[in-house]
């Protein structure tokens, strides 16, 4: 308890700089957000695809192609494997569909002819895959009871039309989503910077060799002492995270009260935990209080810049994004970008988001293990 109390006292002594830092960064993030333009999100949200049609018949084949084309941008390229691969490589298309010969006839005959695909496995590709699977699923169900091809097509279209309607009504206005994503991505910088600053300031006091010596020789269990410090740091992190969430409710409440809001909160919560572990690691290594400001800049500013907290990821060169893959911030911001263009909140479309979260959690575990190793070493003074 005395450790917790002293943590607060040390924090209170540093309060002016902590408050200054927190408010400046928060205000900075908010003002940046309101100037972020409503870009052409709608176009960006339509995946680019290419269809290789080896079945020249009308009917189901044509209807399938029409359905997919209506919901995507079909790109014009030469029908040539090399060109198609190039287009995928340069990300000009997200998804390629190969409709096999005799698809129409085989399908009507009750078979399930295989449709080959090539995919970038990104958001656009997933969306296209969902459209494709949905069509085949719906068509498959009605085929059992409706034998007439024209009647079948009418029924399918009718069902899918309602689907799209549902989609459209559930879709939030992209402008607010944009804002929310921008706000949270920028928060990656603010949260990381504030946490490193505060945790390093406090830990550098507790870990200073002269203080550490007194702690080690005392009858307080050293591990327990460190665990309490850890807990205190996480409490601070939780308060900081709550602050950012509350402000987001004020700014984009409409989004925050939807299922998107939950995802933004979950994502930023996991990132905050990771940022805390980074700060703890840095704090356990730091010996010089004067170096803290520099370290905050290098780590928080550096990683946020590389990972697109200030400039949207689409605008960053590939080489920078490649480096960014080794930073947890990348996966946090990536998720915010996915959320920005996510049209349907369901398990399949959320898979990449959960994967990103898992990666961030793995990063956190690594950082915790590392700082544990450091603090074990520090049980002796030489």
């Amino acid at each position, binding site marked *: *308890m*005395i*450790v917790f109390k*002293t943590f607060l*006292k*040390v924090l209170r*002594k*540093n309060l002016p700089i902590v408050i200054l830092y927190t408010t400046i960064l928060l205000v900075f993030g908010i003002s940046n957000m309101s100037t972020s333009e409503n870009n052409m999100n709608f176009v960006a949200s339509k995946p680019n695809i290419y269809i290789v049609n080896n079945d020249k018949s009308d009917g189901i084949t044509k209807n399938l192609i029409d359905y997919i084309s209506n919901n995507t941008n079909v790109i014009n390229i030469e029908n040539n494997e090399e060109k198609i691969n190039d287009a995928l490589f340069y990300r000009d298309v997200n998804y390629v569909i190969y409709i096999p010969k005799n698809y129409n006839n085989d399908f009507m005959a009750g078979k399930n002819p295989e449709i080959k695909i090539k995919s970038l496995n990104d958001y656009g590709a997933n969306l296209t895959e969902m459209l494709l699977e949905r069509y085949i699923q719906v068509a498959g169900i009605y085929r059992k009871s409706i034998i007439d091809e024209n009647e079948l097509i009418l029924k399918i279209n009718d069902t899918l039309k309602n689907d799209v309607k549902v989609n459209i009504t559930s879709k939030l206005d992209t402008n607010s989503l944009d804002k929310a994503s921008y706000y949270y991505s920028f928060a990656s910088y603010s949260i990381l910077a504030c946490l490193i600053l505060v945790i390093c300031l406090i830990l550098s*006091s507790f870990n200073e060799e*002269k*203080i550490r*010596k*007194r*702690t*080690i*020789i*005392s*009858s*307080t*269990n*050293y591990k327990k*002492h460190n665990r309490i410090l850890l807990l205190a740091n996480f409490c601070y992190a939780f308060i900081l995270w709550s602050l950012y969430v509350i402000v987001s409710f004020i700014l984009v409440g409409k989004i925050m009260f939807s299922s998107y809001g939950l995802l933004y909160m979950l994502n930023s919560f996991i990132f905050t935990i990771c940022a805390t572990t980074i700060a703890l690691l840095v704090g356990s290594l730091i010996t010089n209080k004067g170096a803290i400001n520099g370290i905050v800049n290098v780590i928080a500013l550096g990683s946020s810049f590389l990972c697109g907290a200030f400039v949207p990821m689409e605008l960053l060169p590939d080489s920078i994004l490649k480096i960014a893959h080794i930073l947890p911030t990348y996966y946090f911001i990536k998720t915010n970008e996915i959320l920005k263009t996510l049209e349907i909140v369901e398990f399949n479309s959320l898979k990449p988001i959960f994967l990103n979260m898992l990666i961030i959690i793995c990063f956190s575990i690594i950082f915790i293990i590392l700082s544990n190793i450091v603090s074990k070493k520090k*049980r*002796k*003074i*030489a």
Partner: protein
Amino acid sequence: MSNIIEVKNLVKQYKEITAVDNLTFDVKKGEVLGLLGPNGSGKTTAINCILSLLNFNEGSIKIFGKEMNHDSYDLKKDIGVVFQEVSVFDELTVYDNIDYFCGLYISDKNQRKKYVEDAISLVGLNDFKKFYPKKLSGGLLRRLNIACGIAHKPKLIFLDEPTVAVDPQSRNNILDGIKHLRDNGATIVYTTHYMEEVELLCDRIIILDKGKILATGTTDKLKSLANIEEKITIEINELDINYLEKIKEFKNVDDAAYNGNSLVITYKKGKNNLLEIMEYMKKENIKYSKIFSERPTLNDVFLELTGKELRD
């Protein structure tokens, strides 16, 4: 009397230096043991090894009869340490600092409150409770450092050069405080390179140099090692060299030297040396301004044992 500390064959090497070289000694219950040695003789290193703050190369350490290692929390609760450098939080007030370090031992709030107040009065910081360390003078800081180390009323106290570079008032206050702790039954290990303090405080003394024990014993026993019985210093403005040679021939005189304006005569034995020399001066009509006789100091002992002065 039982042994509070037993150190056996302790060796601690840094890369090239052997800072503690095969140290063996005991500390008995209730005594004040002085570790006397010049800077760099290994006093701090020895204490850090005993406290398990440092890994050492060889040897064994028992405190209160039990093996000491880094998780001997039951032993640690009765040990208090005052480190050589001031070890406090800059962000906490005098009171909060003492409260925090005491709180690492004592979780009961009311008891701690009393203990902290006791420690504050012991070192005389009552008027400075709300001060931050940055606002304290060197002497007051040292007193705070002591209060932080002993507030939990330990049975065994290590004090590592607690009076280095403090003003005389703080120094007296600190020495009185230590006597008070001793009178309340604490066992104390006291390191210093000031021999006067050791003579004043310690029941037993260990003289260290280059990590080795040179001599152990009470002040009197150690002084007998100095190989001189008495030292007489006479302040004379001018002294003829012939007189000096004559004095050297005196029966009990070991050596005599004249430099600047003081004549120092050392005696190996004899009772009435002072009287003898005063009569000689009177007879030869040598004018002198001051004359005094001293028993040998621990510095003389150190000089005798190592050929160098304790203080640089």
